[in-house]
């Protein structure tokens, strides 16, 4: 059992987390941009992120968990619950956003956040979980591999 700092708390996102979560989503998208020019962020990233976060917090088909330290939001995990039209099992949890503030990394906070998210998904009937992240992000590749994930589809892109 991993021992997490007692100041760290995990909980569901609330509407008043919107500002903090918007910041984290913007940070995550800017981090993704570092890996591939095709992930360049839009100029209106902040407005877009705010709209996206507001919708996700209210959406019953989304799981949005936050991590806080001494009352400050320092991490998030957002997953979408999806129907798989052709495959079994049919209900999939897709982790779309996963971000921990730099100074809280390497302290097992991400691992615990993932564990809680998977628990939550199981309760909602999810039987398969997947994750989206930039192909060049080797830290994520290693993290998910350590958690038992393996690649099942590839998305390739080119600019036109």
């Amino acid at each position, binding site marked *: 059992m991993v021992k997490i700092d007692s100041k760290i708390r995990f909980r569901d996102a609330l509407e008043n987390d919107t500002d903090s979560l918007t910041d984290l989503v913007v*940070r995550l998208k*800017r*981090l993704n941009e*570092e890996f591939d020019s095709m992930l360049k962020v839009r100029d209106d990233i902040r407005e877009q992120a705010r709209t996206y976060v507001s919708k996700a917090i209210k959406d019953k088909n989304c799981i949005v968990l936050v991590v806080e330290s001494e009352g400050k939001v320092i991490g998030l995990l957002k997953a979408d619950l999806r129907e798989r039209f052709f495959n079994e099992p049919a209900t999939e949890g897709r982790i779309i956003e996963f971000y921990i*503030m*730099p*100074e809280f990394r390497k302290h097992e906070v991400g691992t615990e956040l993932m564990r809680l998210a998977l628990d939550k998904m199981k309760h909602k009937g999810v039987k398969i979980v997947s994750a989206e992240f930039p192909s060049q992000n080797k830290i994520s590749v290693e993290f998910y591999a350590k958690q038992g994930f393996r690649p099942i589809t590839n998305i390739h892109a080119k600019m036109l």
Partner: protein
Amino acid sequence: MPKKKDRTALLYGLAMRYSKFYGGKISVMPNVPIRSLDDFSIWYTPGVAAVSRAIEKDHDLSFELTSRWNTIAIVSDGTRVLGLGNVGPEAAMPVMEGKAMIFKYLGGVNAVPITVGVHDQQEIFNTVKALEPAFGGFNLEDIESPKCFFLLDSLRKEVKVPVWHDDQQGTAGATLAGLFSAIKLTGRKAADTKIVFLGTGAANIATVRILTSAGFEAGNIIMVDSSGILEPEREDMDELSLHNPWKYDIAIKTNAERVKGGLEEALNGADVLVAASKPGPSTFPKEYIKGMNRNSIVFALANPVPEIWPWEAKEMGARIVATGRSDFPNQVNNSIIFPSLFRGALDCRASTITDEMIVAASSELAKYAHDNGANDDHIIPTMQDWDVYPKVAAAVAMKAVEQRIARHSMSSKKFHDRAKAIMDASKSMVSTLIKNKLIKMPPS
């Protein structure tokens, strides 16, 4: 400063003329008597075969039977030369030759300049690793950041002889020596001293790393760069984590109070400013110094013009000011560190140069200054303090022995006397060659 400009122009002119006249600053000299050509059969074939066979059986003997014990390589790719920038390996050669000359004259170390035509960090690593059998140590020089961090860290792990990056460790060691002395003069304790670093280049990042091995608290340190105060919530942290993990790591560890803003906010309540950023004058408003604590210490290390003139810093309340210049008091200069540090590391056959060995060198320099009447305008020894070099070499060697990374162990006095003999012989050799006109006087 017209006078300064005239002097610089004069020195440029002389350097060009003399370089042409002498065709470079260093050469390789036999170390053995050649009484007649018959001696070649001892020093070369067939005699040398016995020496080769012995070393083939025991590679360590290369430190006893060849000049490897006292020979290092100065390796540069020429990507960050002095104040010149990325001038390339050919243009870096005069600088590396100069460094080799200083190594020999002050430290008695045979240093071979090797400027490499590769720039990829892994290729430079492979080159240095491939050169290991020929050298007793490596001095990395004028290699751009963050490549220099990768090379120092990875080579220190992989290579079994001392590896040193002077722009990082030399500057850090000299700065630390000045800091040890200045905090003593102002009645401070290392653990309580609040230090602000302006500039996050190789020198300052290395200095922060060394300071934390020397009793200073990382949490009491604030680093400031062109984007402001470095702190874990800064927006470029993820970018740093990918492209400059050394700076990222420091951002996580320093600034415990999570101060945000710029240099002005950082200096508020600080004891020390170490600036190694853009050359001045007026790199920042001098009034910022007013926000520092009483008896503040300012190291303005940019060359050729410090970030703030010493008299301006004092006018704003600083008590001790150091710069990188020899024409002002308190010159923070790598040349008082690297020759003697390598002398000590080679004499004890250290397998590496640890941070603790650098701290030992800095402590010895500060001690020497205080034993010889340190004051606000004389916090560290100058290059003319000949006695200090063997003392530093002995302190470094003794630290290596204590850390069990030395292959030779002797008393401190013996290390000192050996270093002094080698250093004295080196200076004597130059004066003898001059006296015998084998080193000619420059043309008038």
